[in-house]
């Protein structure tokens, strides 16, 4: 069936991937929900029913009602508004942390995986060093070095997850490295960079992509853990993880306070994963056989 592969090349790989992706219902559903969330996040300053930071003690702990669909928190703030506005923070943390982490990880992983030898050794040991420093500590350090703010959270997560991408990429590069098509490529004097970019990366991409999609969710969850330890995004920013960890003291008495940010995180992660799965399938040239 090489014919099909040939035809794909004619159509352009991007369109092919998109075409296949469009046929995956789960991926499209995930993408749809994510798009809605992104739209909500972008429009939230104008569409939230109440200001997300408006306090109203008379409504403290108010359960869900027609007026406040998701109820109110301990300071009487409308949880629906906070969840909607919080999408800005949580999605940004997830996406940016993964983008930054994956970009650095890809470079390091491909270099180390392809060249092997001394470069591999040195870079992998460097990754070992970084991996050995737990992300929480990394978060403190980065907040100290770069100053406080929401970006420190992103950087902390990005840097602490970067070695993961590098390792996965290196692992899959090592498994494809001695396959024949690479020898073929090197025999026709393809430059190393070209070999990495044109031949190894696309073949290692699916493994990377799985890791990356999982990590968008993981990054959101990690921000929650940082909040739990007291290092997350600062109030009154309604980042979901911060809302969740801030409300944990009320888990038994006012469960709606933890339910809705929790659902927001869960739905987001679920959709990210469905979309990621679809993307993986669509990108994998071997899948069609």
């Amino acid at each position: 069936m090489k014919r099909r592969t040939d035809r794909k090349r004619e159509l352009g790989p991007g369109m092919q991937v998109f075409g296949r992706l469009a046929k995956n219902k789960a991926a499209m559903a995930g993408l749809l929900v994510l798009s809605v969330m992104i739209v909500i996040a972008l429009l939230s300053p104008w569409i939230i029913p109440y200001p997300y930071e408006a306090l109203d003690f008379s409504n403290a702990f108010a359960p869900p009602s027609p007026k406040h669909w998701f109820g109110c928190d301990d300071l009487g703030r409308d949880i629906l508004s906070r969840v909607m506005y919080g999408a800005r923070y949580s999605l940004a943390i997830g996406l940016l942390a993964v983008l930054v982490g994956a970009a650095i990880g890809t470079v390091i992983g491909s270099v180390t995986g392809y060249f092997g030898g001394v470069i591999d050794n040195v870079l992998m040991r460097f990754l070992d060093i970084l991996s050995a420093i737990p992300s929480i500590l990394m978060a403190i350090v980065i907040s100290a070095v770069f100053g406080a703010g929401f970006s420190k959270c992103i950087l902390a997560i990005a840097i602490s997850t970067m070695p993961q991408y590098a390792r996965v990429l290196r692992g899959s590069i090592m498994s494809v490295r001695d396959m024949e098509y690479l020898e073929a490529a090197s025999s026709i004097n393809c430059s190393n960079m070209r070999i990495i970019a044109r031949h190894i990366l696309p073949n290692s991409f699916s493994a990377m992509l799985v890791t990356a999609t999982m990590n968008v969710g993981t990054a959101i969850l990690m921000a929650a853990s940082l909040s739990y330890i007291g290092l997350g995004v600062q109030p009154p920013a309604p980042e979901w993880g911060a809302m969740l960890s801030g409300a944990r003291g009320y888990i038994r008495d006012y469960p709606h306070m933890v339910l809705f940010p929790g659902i927001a995180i869960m739905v987001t992660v679920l959709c990210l994963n469905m979309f990621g799965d679809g993307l993986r399938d669509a990108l994998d040239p071997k899948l069609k056989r």
Partner: protein
Amino acid sequence: MKKKLTAVTLAMAVSVMLLAGCGGAGRTDAGGTEAERTTAAGTGTPAAETSQPGVQDAKGEAEIDEGRTVGTIDEITINVSSDIADLAPFSVTTNGRQSVLPTLYEYLAYYDPNTESGIRGILMKDFEALDGFTFRIEIYDSIYDSAGNHITAEDVAWCFNTYHELGISGLAWLVDYCKPIDDYTVELKLMSDAAGQFENVICGQVPIVSKTAYENSPDGMTEKVVSTSPYIVDRYVSGSQLVVKKNPDYWQKDDSLILDVSRANAETITFNIITESSQTAINLETGAIDIAQKISSTEASRFIDGEDADQGYHVFGTGDSNIYLLFFNMSEDSVFHDNQALRQAICYAIDTDGIVQGAAKGSAKALKAVGNPICVDYNPEWEQQDYYDYDVDKAQERMKESGYDVSKPLRIMCASTEMSQSISQIIQAYLMQIGIQTEIEVYDSALFSTYIADPTAWDMFVDTRMNNDYVTTLSSILARKGDTPAVNFCEDATLEQLAAEASGATGHSAETVEAYMQYTKEQAYVYGLMSITNYYVTNDKVADIFVNFKGLVVPGACRYYTQQ
């Protein structure tokens, strides 16, 4: 020590109220009556006299309470909210250590508001104040630690000097010298004569151990404690658990001289470290602990009138020794420097009752002065006076006077505790009403402590200060100390003079305190927000709890229903 100081409530050992449960006088609403209760505690009329009969003169013999025998118990377990770190007498004080130190060690004395002298000796037999700075302290001649070492004046002097030399406590500077006069008498000289400092040093800072025992200890007593306390360490699992057993050979044989704090009403006490606050109540309900200290008001209310009421739990509440304050940056470049109107505008704009409702869920009391109502020199009249009571109109008026340009947002800095963050958010919302935009900057404790010292890092900050003896002790943080600037970089000679007069051992009087406090209020360098209520919930093994001045339960001194 002056007689008039004897009425001081240094420690509110017994200002504890039974809120609910079988032994209680009926259920009380947590929110509504909080203010009265805290006031009652604060004005130095310990509620214990009415609701806790017998705590003061408990001498170990059995009593009958509602048909049940009150006395001792075999085993009791209590939570500690953070890591104990180590058990040594002189290492750095952390929250976890404070929970266990009163059980592991004895101090020279304990403050007891119900006695004539105010200070009741534990190891100390008597004391004499030579002047505001120097004291002669006599100890009992029969003190032996659990290893049989005899404690003499030399040991006491060594302990104070070691404490001073190590310098790892914020109060270590206070000790000038301590020298033995004879076998059982030492002379202690302090660096300050400010009211409350002597009590502070002898009652809560320096545990007394035998020099021989300490020097012979292979680990500097970090785990193997040898002390005079009625309890000896049975097992210590670092980071998890401390088990102590009653010392059968406690040195004080005269029962009438044993203070409550040195009682051993439980044969075995287990301190369980529970770092996750929402786990504390669960541990109590599953029977893993018997006493849950410092649980949130939301959880406490579940035991009072929620689903866990009438399950045999007892809820106790006391005013905390810490108060929440809002500090304005008074350094030269700050917007608040020379702008009293702006400070006042902000004070007027903040509804402290709103903070009580919103941040403390009603379990607190809005402050009416820069001082804790539990302080002995707190003037009840302040309660009736205006202390920037919430008034948006006045706030706006003052804003106009201040001429402050609202386009630049102000930074509110706070530590990353739930309460401080909530308070900051509420303040942010109130300030928005008068057009002031704010940014909240939250830091972990270490960064917060560091940035406080940097006048360019913040415009306002929310923080707590311990204030449980005299309202005037807080003046020390508003004044320069040598090279150390005031906490908020305030430089005001008038304030310093008023404070010096009011807090000195000789000048401390109702008039000087009043003058100091009215000036402090008027200048509004710092705005008092609220004092919160701490909650303690126990299961039905516990009849009464004993809370020391740091708001922590001393389990050996609690009283239990004797099991049949």
